[in-house]
Structures are given as structure tokens and as C-alpha cells.
């Protein structure tokens, strides 16, 4: 019941920005997508989340081809934290988090929604920002609110025993070290509760320390998939990232 890509290719202007990508991310595991800029990691993530339709191949979530899943059901199984927020209207932070409950309209009560939103805000340590205008928050604060929203979205398991998936695109980019570490810890915590975590991360040190599996991308291809320790060898890092010398992660 993994999040899978099977021979997925994405072609733009005749060029394959993702070529024949195949692999599975398991539930109860923290998978990281790594690689240099333009390697195809965000593209692969987009196919997994259902945002991008593959030109070739297929993607499946929890055993079902994503194209066949109704958008509401999909929204109750997986949440996405994008790299940037496009919000330009002055919602208060808790209103933004509350929008995460949108796919549950008609399937939940106000009481439950409020409690979940409350909890999600607490978990991401943005309680003191709840009534602040989202637009006035710093980049890092906004990111934490966005993550809280994603948590609120898939707080409950989709159906008995179903997997909750969280996809994140460069979540640590704007965060202070303190929050980077606490986010990684939080993701591990969720993973232990059975959530499937897939994140595009550029910081290999964080990846080695906190992630279980790694997909290494280069030039639109999946170079390697496997446990972080075995994939992120000094030689491989040198080759994929085009360094002058091999680099060993501490």
C-alpha cells in the first residue's frame, strides 16, 4: 500500500524532465527526495501527489491509481505542503489552518474540526500566531502554519487502517535551525504513528540524520533508491552533485 511511481515520464517541449521513474515509498517511513536543482525531484513529488499527470507510466497511492481516485477521497488521504504560499489575502493563521478541513465537509462536526485545528496549531508551535494576519508572518512562521494546515487535513485516518500521507516540498528552506530540527522530529513522530512521509529535502545532513529512505535524482532520472546510509555514500554524492572530491556525511 505504498506511494508508487511506475515508469513515469514527464515531457516538456520535447525534453524529458523526468524519465522512466520507478519506485515505492512505504507507509510508516520517512522518504527523502534528494538531488541537485532541476534533477526532477519536485516533479516526481508532484506526480505522487496527483498534481501532475504523467505523460507516460502511472502513479498509485495506497494501491490505487491516482487518476481513478475521486478528488475528495484523495484529499482525505494525503496532504501537500508546497514550497511557496500564494495567499495574498489577510486571513488569520488559524483560518488558514482551518481550510485544511475542507475535504471533510459534511463528514465531521464543528467541535471535532475546532479540536483538530487547535491540536495541529499546537503541534507546530504557532499558537501565539493564531490570530495574526498570515501575510505579516515571516517565511518560517508561514511554513509552520502551512504544515499545521496539512496536518489538520489528514488528521484522521481515511478509513480503518488506511495510511495518511504527507508530502512536503523543501519544508526546511525558510526555517530556523530550531524549527528545522523540531520539524524533522515531528515527521519522525508521525512516521512512527504509521503516516507515510515523503519530502523533497536539499539538506543532506538532515536527510542522513532523520530520513529512513532516499531517492537520489540526477538529470531527470532516479539514480538510486534505498536506505539513506547506503545511498548517500561519499562517491555517489560527489558524482550526483558534481563535487570536486568525494564528500562524507557526518
Amino acid at each position, binding site marked *: 500500500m505504498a506511494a508508487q511511481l511506475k515508469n513515469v515520464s514527464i515531457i516538456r517541449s520535447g525534453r524529458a524532465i523526468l524519465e522512466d521513474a520507478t519506485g515505492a515509498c512505504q507507509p510508516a517511513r520517512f522518504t527523502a527526495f534528494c538531488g541537485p536543482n532541476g534533477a526532477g525531484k519536485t516533479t516526481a513529488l508532484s506526480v505522487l*501527489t*496527483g*498534481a501532475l499527470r504523467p505523460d507516460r507510466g502511472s502513479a498509485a497511492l495506497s494501491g490505487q491509481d491516482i487518476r481513478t481516485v475521486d*478528488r*475528495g477521497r*484523495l*484529499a*482525505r488521504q*494525503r*496532504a*501537500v505542503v*508546497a514550497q511557496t*504560499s*500564494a*495567499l*495574498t*489575502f*489577510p*486571513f*488569520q493563521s*488559524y*483560518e*488558514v489552518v482551518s*481550510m*485544511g478541513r*475542507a*475535504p471533510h*465537509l459534511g463528514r465531521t462536526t*464543528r*467541535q471535532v474540526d*475546532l479540536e483538530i*485545528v*487547535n491540536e495541529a*496549531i*499546537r503541534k507546530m508551535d504557532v*499558537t*501565539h500566531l*493564531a*490570530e495574526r*494576519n498570515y*501575510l*505579516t508572518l515571516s517565511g518560517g512562521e508561514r511554513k509552520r502554519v502551512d504544515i499545521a494546515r496539512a496536518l489538520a*487535513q489528514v488528521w484522521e485516518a481515511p478509513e480503518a487502517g488506511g495510511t495518511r500521507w504527507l508530502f512536503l516540498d523543501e519544508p526546511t528552506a525558510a526555517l530556523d535551525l530550531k524549527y528545522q530540527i523540531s520539524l524533522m522530529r515531528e515527521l519522525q513522530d508521525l512516521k512512527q504513528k504509521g503516516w507515510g512521509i515523503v519530502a523533497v529535502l536539499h539538506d543532506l545532513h538532515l536527510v542522513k540524520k532523520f530520513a529512513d529512505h532516499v531517492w537520489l535524482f540526477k538529470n531527470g532520472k532516479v539514480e538510486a533508491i534505498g536506505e539513506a546510509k547506503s545511498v548517500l555514500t561519499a562517491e555517489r554524492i560527489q558524482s550526483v552533485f558534481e563535487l570536486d572530491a568525494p564528500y562524507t556525511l557526518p
Partner: protein
Amino acid sequence: MEASPPALEAASSANLNTNRERIGVLVLAGAALLAMIGMAIGVLVGPLQITLSEFSAVALSWVGIGDAESVSRVKTGVIENIRAPRSVLGALVGASLGIAGAAMQGFFRNPLADPGLIGVSTGGALAAVAVIVLGGTLLSPILVFLGAFALPIIAFLGSLITVAIIYRVSVFDGRVIVATMLLAGVAANAVAASGIGYFTFLADDAQLRDLTFWTLGSLGGAIWDRVLPAALLMLISIAGLLTLARPLNCLLLGEADAETLGIDVEATKRKAAFLTALGVGAATAVCGVINFVGLVVPHVVRLITGPDHRFVLPGSALLGAALVLFSDLVARVSVAPAELPLGVVTAAIGAPFFFWLLIRDKRTSGLG
């Protein structure tokens, strides 16, 4: 364990309303009250002096209590056939313009948007102007066929066709590209403006006057026969747009995020555009061009309630109704027994107010 954020703290299990929601409800109640006062004024006040007891006699006769024989036929006629349809029309036109303005601001993710951006008003205006100028010649067989409803019907069709064209042009790969639609709207407005310019060029003195008055907007000449069909369309538009509150909220996060939240973004955009065309098209067809309501009213509501469409949409409808009704009062009474065009009054109120809003709220109005 930290305490809940104050906003949610206030929502005890008994009452489940956050602070903002409480404010939102108050605003809706206030706007509803204003709209009702506006309608009452629309029926009770006017250039013709009618006393409260005369009005009561007529009103009671509607529900079968007594007949209004003591009241003169003219006064009864004014209440029933001039003021009543006019109030109903004014309320619905204001509500349509207000809620459509709010919906368009959500659709374009821009607080400066208004229904005119998708070409509703100019399409209708171009059609109306063509009717006014060509009515005696080229279009006369059509006009004879449509009778007294010719102008509103053709204007309405003009609105719908313009929006449909702009919409089609902006579709790529099955999705509506909002940025393209904005530009298409600008282009369409330019084309329509030149078309209107051409017809203005052809018009003779009388037609020119008619044309000018139409582009200034007016609730005058509102008789039940014309009001009821337009009212139906506007009610459908308002009801439909109200259901888009949550989807529009999510749409403000960006289309990609809205999609991952399970919102059918394309359907939302389609409905927003179509319902706007329906309501504003009907309003413009019957009253001519009325500016500023769709732009200013949602702004005012948003200032107090925040951007949550669950309050902004109904609030804009109610406040829009109130604004039009009060503006119409000024239009009807200030130069009695003559009348000012409604669009002049709404612009006179709306424009300075809008400038004030912009200056006051540069930081938090969501423009930056």
C-alpha cells in the same frame, strides 16, 4: 501543554464560534437591517407625499385586510406599481452586483477586481447601444418582434456572449488560466469601447441622449413585467454564488493548493464566471451600467469581517442592496420632481470612499 489560541479558546463547546465568526454574524445582521431599512424607505419615501396611514391601508389590503379605498388611485398605483417594483429591483441589483464583485475578487485573487473585468457590463452596454442607435433601421425587425423587452433582452445576450467568448479564449488544456482571462477581459473591454464609440458616432441627438442615460444607469421605469424576469435571474445568481463560499476561500490559497484540498477548481471558476454573467448581465440589462457597487462593497465588508467568503459573499449582497437602495433614494428625491441617474450617485459615493479605503489600508488590504 499549551493553552489554546485565544481565538479558539473563545469557542467553548457551548458556542463554537470564533471571534471572527461572531463579528461576521454581527456584520451580516447589520447589513441585513440596513437592506431592510433601505427597502422600507424605497416604498415609504419619495417625491410624492404619502402618509404612513395611507401606506398601511394599502399594505393591509395586500393581505386581504380591508380595501384601500380611502387612498387615491394614483397613490396606490405609485406604491404598488412604481415604488414596490423599484425597491425590489434596487435590492436585487445591489445584491447581485455586490456578491458578484466579491466572487470576482476571489476568482481573480485580486481585491481590485469587479464584474466588469470579465466583460459583463461592456458586452451588455455594446449590445444596448447598438439597439438604441440601430433600432430604427437595421435592427428594427428584431425589435418589433421583441417589443418593449428588446433592449433588456439584447443587452443580456450581449453580456452572456461576451463572457462566453472571454472564457473560451482563456481555456488551455482544459483549464481556465485566470491571468489570461484578465487580459482577455481587458481586450474585450477595449473592443467594446471602440464599438460603443462607433455607435456614438452614428447616433443622432435623441439617440445620443438615450445612450448617455443608459450608460449612467437608472432604476427608473421599473415595472413588474420587467422586474420579475430579471429578479428571477438575479436570485439564481445570488443563491448559486453563495454556495461557492468555501471553494473560493480555498482558491485564495492558490489553485494548486486548492486542488490538493480536494476543491474542483475548474468547476468553481466556471460557476463563478457563469453566475456573475447571469446576475450582473440581468442587472445591467434592466438598469444600465452601475459602477462601484461591485468594487467598493466587498472591500468594506472584508475590512470588518476579514476575507472569509462565508461572510464576505452574503455581506456584500446585503450591503450592496442597502447601498443601491440608499443611493436610489438620493437619486429620486434630491432633484425632485426630476431624477438623477443612479450610476452618478453610486460613483459619487463610491469613488471617494474607495480612495479613502486604499489610503487607509495599504498594508493589510491584501494588495501587497
